[in-house]
């Protein structure tokens, strides 16, 4: 991350004045997740189907985030884990191929922001809080906000969504680390 120049979301400048909408660069974006498996971890990735963001760097609370994930094409660190995760006892991705998140409030916090919203997994909707950081993408000029990298981190307890399969072996908490590269709509 050192090569990325951090943007302080709090300092408002003339270029950041208006809320701007952004869309995803799907091939350069990834949702990573991690959970405990005995003394080991299961890690994996899920493609992002769609992300719509409206970012207002002057009035952070006017920002909005909506993300849809492709649970049916999720992958995990070993084949059994991927199969178990997508199966009926966990994500049930045949009946619920998507996971979605919609923000309900965005607040600036420290160097980044705290995004509160609703996440829908297996058709069950629950509140969720994620921490967000935003950087300019590598190779862009200072002050150029057309290409950004956003990192969202947070966690869900899969039991909240009825995704309880293999709970005797695999941890309840699933930690998410989303790295999305986004482009401002012209």
């Amino acid at each position, binding site marked *: 991350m050192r090569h990325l120049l951090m943007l302080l979301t709090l300092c408002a400048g003339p270029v950041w004045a208006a809320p701007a909408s952004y869309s995803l660069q799907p091939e350069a974006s990834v949702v990573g997740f991690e959970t405990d498996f*005995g003394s080991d971890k299961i890690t994996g990735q899920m493609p992002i189907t769609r992300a719509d963001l409206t970012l207002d760097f002057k009035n952070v609370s006017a920002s909005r985030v909506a993300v849809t994930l492709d649970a049916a094409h999720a992958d995990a660190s*070993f084949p059994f884990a991927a199969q178990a995760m997508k*199966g*009926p006892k966990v994500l049930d991705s045949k009946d619920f191929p998507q996971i979605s998140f919609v923000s309900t409030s965005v607040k600036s916090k420290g160097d980044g922001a705290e995004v509160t919203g609703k996440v829908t997994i297996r058709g069950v909707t629950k509140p969720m809080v994620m921490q967000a950081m935003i950087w300019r993408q590598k190779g862009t000029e200072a002050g150029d906000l057309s290409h950004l990298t956003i990192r969202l981190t947070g966690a869900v307890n899969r039991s909240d969504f009825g995704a309880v399969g293999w709970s005797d072996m695999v941890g309840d908490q699933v930690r998410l680390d989303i790295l999305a590269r986004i482009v401002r709509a012209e």
Partner: protein
Amino acid sequence: MWRNTPTAFGLTTRLLHWLMAGLIVALLVLGTVLVRIQPDLSTLWLYGLHKTLGLCALVLAFARLVWHRISPPPAPTGPPNQWANRAARAAHVALYLLMLAIPLSGWIASSATGLDVVIFGQITLPAIAPTSEALENAGFAAHSVLTKLLMALLLTHIAGATLRGLKHDGTLRRITKGS
């Protein structure tokens, strides 16, 4: 030498008997270990090993039944209606049923989890049951109860064989040395 005769076990039957004996004891121990450990990446292979050996046991049980059609085993030593022979006969029938039912219940339950059943680290077996939590629980419950039954029956089988060995009636010798 390979075939059974009216009075002696051939090498095929004896090899099958002892190979399966070793395999079944190993499976009983391994299975008991599996349900007691906390699975993680370092122990995942033990499940694969259990399924691989279990499938081998199933194939060998079928092979043995087929072989005994081709080359029938000798009748028990001593008078056929002796109670000990009738008990032994019943125990052997039960052992065969368990040697089929146990691996099949393991395979059914494993299939019902919805996960691939992979043996020898690469061969994916067909699922012989639909993905169903009820079937998974019932299958593993059956697997667990039937294996306890097998343990009890094996002890009886070994006790019976030992008693006959102590009597030197030739029963133990013909399954070990042949005749």
